[in-house]
């Protein structure tokens, strides 16, 4: 049953990723201005995953540029020539990247739609009035958290999601949680399995500190053995650097 849920989760995420990949192709090509002779024009790509979230959720920005000496994202500042960054927008935001080089400049934009928190409020106010199943409520309130490259520390970006998870679990004392630790495809299986274990442990510790009983939480590492996303891209790798929550039955 647990694996069934996980497969379903994987399928939903996979569908989201495939849909997202489709969107990416429709992004207009980067515009470049007045390239100088002999200097190649910069190129820039910027994507956000997912493109629609609920307030408090994490969004992964991923960018790649070439031939640029100065790259910045509005509201974030100067960034490396390629990379990923986790942000937590409170309202719908257009992230705008500008890459400047000797050959001119290029820019790229990624739009994130942020919906106000609704499910959590409904559940918090009156559980019985909700038509959602326990499973659906869990999914709506206990969301996966993402980790930086080779890190197992719960970042400040994830604290909102974890507080929401802890509040939901406190109101549903019969639910037991399974936390899965996941890693991206790079590096060794063996090391990634321990890294995934440390990620799942970090998420567990955060919930325990928020008052959830330790014996309600089970952790397991999947390393890179059960990826949510199987492409070799920064977007996909960030999707896989996570602690995933499910009901432990």
């Amino acid at each position, binding site marked *: 049953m647990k694996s069934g849920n996980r497969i379903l989760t994987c399928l939903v995420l996979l569908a989201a990723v495939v849909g997202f990949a489709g969107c990416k192709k429709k992004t207009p090509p980067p515009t470049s201005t007045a390239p100088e002779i002999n200097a190649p024009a910069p190129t820039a790509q910027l994507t956000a995953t997912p493109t629609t979230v609920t307030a408090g959720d994490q969004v992964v920005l991923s960018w790649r540029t070439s031939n640029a000496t100065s790259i910045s994202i509005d509201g974030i500042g100067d960034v*490396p*020539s*390629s*990379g*990923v960054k986790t942000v937590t927008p409170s309202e719908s935001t257009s992230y705008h990247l500008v890459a400047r080089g000797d050959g001119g400049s290029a820019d790229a934009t990624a739009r994130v739609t942020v919906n106000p928190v609704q499910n959590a409020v409904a559940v918090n106010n009156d559980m019985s009035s909700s038509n959602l199943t326990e499973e659906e409520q869990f999914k709506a309130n206990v969301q996966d958290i993402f980790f930086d*490259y*080779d890190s*197992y520390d719960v970042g400040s970006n994830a604290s909102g999601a974890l507080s929401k998870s802890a509040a939901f679990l406190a109101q549903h004392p019969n639910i037991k949680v399974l936390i899965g630790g996941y890693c991206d495809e790079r*590096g*060794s*299986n*063996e*090391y990634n*399995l*321990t*890294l995934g*274990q*440390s990620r799942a*442990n970090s998420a567990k510790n955060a919930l325990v500190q928020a008052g959830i009983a330790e014996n309600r939480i089970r952790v*397991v*590492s999947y390393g890179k*053995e059960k990826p949510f996303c199987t492409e*070799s891209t*920064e977007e996909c790798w960030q999707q896989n650097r996570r602690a995933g929550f499910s009901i432990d039955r």
Partner: protein
Amino acid sequence: MTVSFRNLSRLLAAIAILLAPALQTTALHAQDWVRTGSGLSNQRIRIAAADFKPVGNDPQTPEFKTIFDATLFSDLSNAGVFDMVSKSMAPTATPGSPQEISLPQWAADPANASMVALGALSVTNGRLTVSGWVLDAKNPASPPVLGKQYGDAASQDNARAIAHRFADDIIARLSGMNGIAETKIYFVSARSGTKEIWAMDYDGQNEHIVTRLGSTSLSPRISPDNTRVAFSSIGKEGWAIRMYSLELGRMVAFPGGAAGGSNFSPAWSGDGSKIAFSSSRSGDPEIWVADSTGGNLHKLTSFHGPDVAPTWNPKTNSQIAWVSGRTGLPQIYTMDADGANIQRMTDGGYAISPSWSPSGQFLSFSWNRKYGPGAPGGQDIYVMDIASKRWLQLTHDAGSNDYPSWSPDGRHLVFERAIGGRTEIWTMLADGTEQHQLTHSGKDFMPNWSWK
């Protein structure tokens, strides 16, 4: 004391001239310390493997003879101690015994062999019999260097097995070290749909599945006596160290391997009495040691961050190398077998999967020295001299390489190489030369070379 400017510049020029050849020599022989330490620097013996003489008229004989000849030639080539006479330069004769060979023909150009391996093969009543000799081509009057007879049930597998035995006898006689032609490589393959433990001969022949657990099984490690395979497998209680008996052909108990938390990457001590592995049963993933029966557990490391992939110094069994993420990116460390005297071996990057050489002198591991977002670094196999921490890169610009494992003769490494989503098992000599691909399914991982 004064030195005129002119004299000083003359002196410097003279030093430069003196040093130039020395520097060049150093560059040319960067691999020398590895070659010396792994026994690859010895003068190679020029040997010819004559095609064996088929005897009798059993219809299976020609097929077995073809397999035997090819396997023997390949084993001697792979050994890393011979300079093989190519079949095209060797006389076409197939002498079946020392009485039937004209040695001067083999000693002369173009064959120019120092040694000749020869013999006869026959099938009688379902039994394969091979008589093999090695003769000193430069001293026709001397008695055979080696003469042996082998027999087994007639089959393709046994034709290969007998060739391996004869090759190992030749290698032992001529190089003074045990050969590897009869060794096995255990690995993970997903070709059946799930990741299971598989085994094959050292040359990639005879691939076969070992476990059928239907989950995900990783990190196989064969026991020093070839009787059991320890590995990590995920079940309903999470990741456990599990044990498969090759003698019984089934799983056997390893009680300490499943006590809660995730358990990964088992490693046998060289005497087979202990197994080190990574376990998070106390919270953080740490290195633990158990008796090989699965009892008497104790924890060796205590530091925040992942600890995994232990490997024992097989020479002394008194040290363990492993991977720790205690300072951020994973690095290779060594410690005494009681957890004391921790030394960091790598100075940065992303270093994983150590394997300790049989001589105790070297570590091989996988290293990405320029790891980071957007960095173009490759994951490559390295070998390090433990005493000096001097290292040599063995693989270059060819996919992502991981899980090196030493052959028992210390002259070879087997490793995993991923190129474009296909992962295969490869071997090479310990100086990085003679790289050969062993598997071809695209789903083969984590090789481990048997101890004998």
